């Protein structure tokens, strides 16, 4: 047979074999068979002696073309096989990404502390120091220094948990005011503090009463602090907590440790001031008490009330949480039911 014919046959047969190789091992065998050192092409080259010298050049060129063709086709097939193998492996590794993940327990902040932390951040930004005082307080700091006379109803055994005649569970955080006022050195600058903490009252627990709850006391005292400053500060607190679109009003009130005393209401979030069952048809919801520090409180702490003055406010953190989160039973804050607490995970942003 003519060498060229052989070459033609080899080309056809070789391409067929390459295409038929099912895996890389078989492809390698085909490679050895076609283009290996002892392969079919080499054989043809060895047969060149039989070719007339003037055609050798043409045959040699054809052999090279066939080799290139084979190598190219081998590489392509090798690549295809590898791709197929990867695809197969990936298919085998396939998982259902819609199955749920494996979860550890998830923490949550207590709703009352959500309010507390939020307010602390607000006040720290305004330059207030966060100060804490004792919960087992003396009658002296809790009442006497705060201008509550001896026979004031709050000092009844019925109202306050007394431990003995002098010591009690504080019924208000106001005692912190007295302690800070006594210590403050006004030559070092104005006094601006908030004092959060637990307080206790001798109330039976029900939906709206708790014998323990949390308050935050605020106090600003310096030479030039006015009731207008108090109004601006309270409005900021109310709008921060309940939204900038809330309307606010101040009403006269009474606390022994402030004069004048006021309470702040915000327009009802439920009915927007139209009147509903939540605001008892008034359109307003009471949120806090405040006032200008009573001169007796300043004088009791050794501060000259003719020079210094300021304002104080008391925030009920449980009450804020009740209003903000629509809680209808204060006891929910103290039973630690995980189904209740878990709702607040998303609140911390």
């Amino acid at each position, binding site marked *: 047979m003519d060498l060229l014919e052989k070459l033609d046959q080899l080309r056809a047969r070789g391409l067929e074999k390459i295409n038929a190789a099912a895996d890389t091992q078989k492809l390698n065998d085909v490679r050895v068979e076609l283009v290996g050192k002892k392969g079919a092409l080499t054989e043809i080259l060895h047969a060149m002696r039989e070719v007339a010298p003037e055609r050798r050049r043409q045959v040699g060129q054809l052999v090279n073309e066939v080799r290139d063709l084979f190598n190219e086709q081998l590489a392509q097939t090798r690549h295809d096989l590898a791709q197929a193998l990867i695809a197969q492996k990936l298919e085998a590794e396939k998982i259902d990404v819609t199955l749920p993940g494996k979860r550890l327990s998830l923490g949550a902040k207590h709703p009352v502390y959500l309010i507390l932390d939020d307010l*602390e951040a607000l006040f720290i*930004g305004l330059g207030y120091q966060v100060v804490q005082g004792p919960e087992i307080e003396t009658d002296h700091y809790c009442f006497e220094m705060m201008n509550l006379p001896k026979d004031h109803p709050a000092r009844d055994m019925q109202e306050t948990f*007394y*431990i003995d005649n002098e010591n009690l569970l504080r019924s208000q955080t106001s005692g912190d005011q007295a302690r800070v006022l006594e210590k403050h050195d006004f030559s070092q600058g104005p006094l601006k503090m908030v004092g959060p903490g637990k307080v206790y009252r001798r109330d039976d627990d029900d939906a709206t009463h708790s014998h323990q709850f949390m308050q935050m006391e605020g106090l600003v005292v310096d030479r030039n602090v*006015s009731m207008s400053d108090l109004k601006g500060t309270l409005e900021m607190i109310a709008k921060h907590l309940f939204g900038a679109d809330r309307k606010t009003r101040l009403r006269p009130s009474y606390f022994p440790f402030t004069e004048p005393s006021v309470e702040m209401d915000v327009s009802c979030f439920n009915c927007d001031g139209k009147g509903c069952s939540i605001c008892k048809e008034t359109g307003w919801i009471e949120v806090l008490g405040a006032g200008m520090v009573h001169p007796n409180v300043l004088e009791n702490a050794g501060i000259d009330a003719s020079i210094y*003055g300021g304002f104080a406010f008391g925030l009920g953190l449980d009450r804020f949480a009740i209003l903000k989160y629509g809680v209808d039973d204060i006891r929910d804050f103290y039973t630690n039911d995980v189904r209740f607490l878990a709702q607040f995970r998303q609140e911390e942003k």
Partner: protein
Amino acid sequence: MLVSYNWLKDFVKLEVEPHALAEKITRTGVEIAEVKHPATGLKKLVAGHVLTCVKLEGTHLHQCMVDVGEVDPIQIVCGAPNVAADEMVIVALHGARIAGNEKIKRGKIRGMVSNGMICGLQEIGFSDSVVPMKYRDGIFIFPEGSDIQPGEDVYHALGMDDYLLDFDITPNRADTLSMEGAAYEVGAIIDQPVKVEPVSLKADGPAWTSTLTAEVDAKLAPKFYLRKVTGVKITESPLWLQTRLWNAGIRPVNNVVDVTNYVMLLTGQPMHAYDARTFKTGKLSVRLAKPDETLTLLNEKKVVLDPADIVITDGDQPVMLAGVMGGLNSEVMPDSHEVILETAVFDGTLVRKSALRHANRTEASSRFEKGINWDNTQKALDMAALLLRNEAGATILDGVLKGSDTKRKPVTVKTTFSYLNKVLGTTLTTDQVVTLFNRLKFETQVARDQLTVTVPARRWDIMIPADLVEEVGRLYGYDNLKSTQPLLAETQGGYANFELFMRHVKHFLQGQGLMEALSYSLTSKARATLFTKAVQPVAEVKMPLNSSRSVMRQNLLTGLVDAASYNFARKETELAFFEQGRTYDHADGQFNEHEHVATLYSGHVYRNNWEHDEAPVDFYFVKGQLENLFTTLGLTGIEYRAEKITGMHPTRTAGIYVQGDYVGFIGMVSHTLTQTEKPLRNSELYGYELDLEQLSHYLPTSTQAKPAPKFPAMSRDLSVLVDQAQSNQSVMAAIRQAAGNYLVKLSVIDVYQGDHLAAGKKSLAYQLTFLNENATLTDDLVNEKMAAVTTALETNLQASVR
């Protein structure tokens, strides 16, 4: 107090409608909790004159023909026991609406047409507590002489067309607990003159004051005035008087009692009326009660008097609990003809405590406890006498018997206009301020910046300049104040270091997946001292609400175990709680508070999962969580010592020591506790509690960074066979000591005890990681260290190293 809008018009010209007035009063003076309009929702209620009334045999019903102002009388079948001919009654016509939005329709009762309903007061919305006793179980009958015609709407005659403003007063504004006081307040708020008229009384009977001696302790009753009236005819009060009382929430009784209550509403001065026969010995005294004295009050409550109760006596026996309520033994009866009227000022604190002690607060006691106007004693007494002359045909005997008559000087307060403006943040002129005080009817004297204000006795709450600030501020209007921020020297806001530390711990634990709990500080005596290594004397409240909330806790874990029990009972058993709070004790004679943190875990490491990874929470999981906390705090030198703590599992609990000092414990809650708490039975609860104050002493100062190691570390494993009693901690200590400074990490990689080992032995395997930060370690050096470790273990711990 419920203040009648219509009555208020007797004193002040009101051009503002009731709801707008209420809003103004709330913003300026006293919170108006509610504006009530009794006629709201009612329809077609008219007066009817019963012409004939026939009882239907064998029933409780009556067949009545009633004139309701139409051409023909209408037939109504009525079941009330007190219906009778010739009565003027309330008729709900066909199509009427009565209380509770109930509709009345023409209908048939026992086959007879009934064209409406004859009503009792409760049926048209009256509270049971104000309906006169004689009408409580039947229909209402207009008193004779009432100015009403058949067919006329009943609302006006019954006072139901009125608006009632509920004055929710603060303790300092008891001056508004009277119509006159409320009128002064409203007049000042709306800037209108107030017409409060004095009483001028001329007695028409003989002098009486020599017939009674009144011995009064002026400390108990600084003022004590009596008048006597005779010829009293006890009857039902006229309708105008009854409506004023019931609109104020007071039940009409009879003309004498009603007059005393009316005068109290008018002037704020509580009054009392005695049957004059009470004092037949001619003696009366005001004194403190004696031990074991008793008195039956008008409401038939029998009280054992306390030596701190003020009583009025007939010279011997108590006849009245002063300021609170009269005694049944001195009550004005239907046959009373002679009445002694009393107006007094009693010690407010003693009255308050009496009312509280005997659980018997009254309109009178609440006024005495908040203070009353000392200038109204005479006026109230004369007013009452006058009204009894008009309404009960009384003769007023000449003279007032004054058992005590302490005088009070009027209060004057001095301040400056600049002070008022400084505190309010305003720029009010002298004239503006004086105008405001004029509205209050306070006298003022002005000398340049100086202001002197004379305060009338009806405003006993005003004593110091700050009180004047309030009057000026509220009348000027808090709405008109500017809203500013304090412009003060710079202050740096923030937390004290310890506060920061506590918050860091809380945030870390929350990040570790724990839910924050908040528990009560008060617990039972037994629980207060559980979970406490060194129990201290407790802080116990004197009058607890109940025994389970009587003692301040000395540990936080108790609260978390309670929380676990609560949740377990609701099938929530996968728990991870933390609480940060205080513990309290009474060590060394003083009350101490300590900031603690505690955690409690139950259930599984992973929540329900389809991969069936069901590793339960155990001691080592919780300890790992705690170790991570310690790592973030940079604490070193931590030691765990097996320890027994009440409430904790005796062999699964460790005391935690930092640099030798006890800081808390970790372990499992004891079976004793979980087995006795039903929901927790057979559960395993793990947790720890730390004293954060103690911990804070060992916190490192800020980190000084060094570069990551440049040279490779080398690891070797080591298996050690020791006695079972030998703790891992002791083996690790021995390894560390012998291995030298290049040992940077030592981990336990296996623990085995069982069949393949000799009895009483266990095998511990460790990985030791060596690193020289300055050079590459050689095998020889590490081998040398390992040999030293082996020797140390063999000689010191009798261990065999494999």
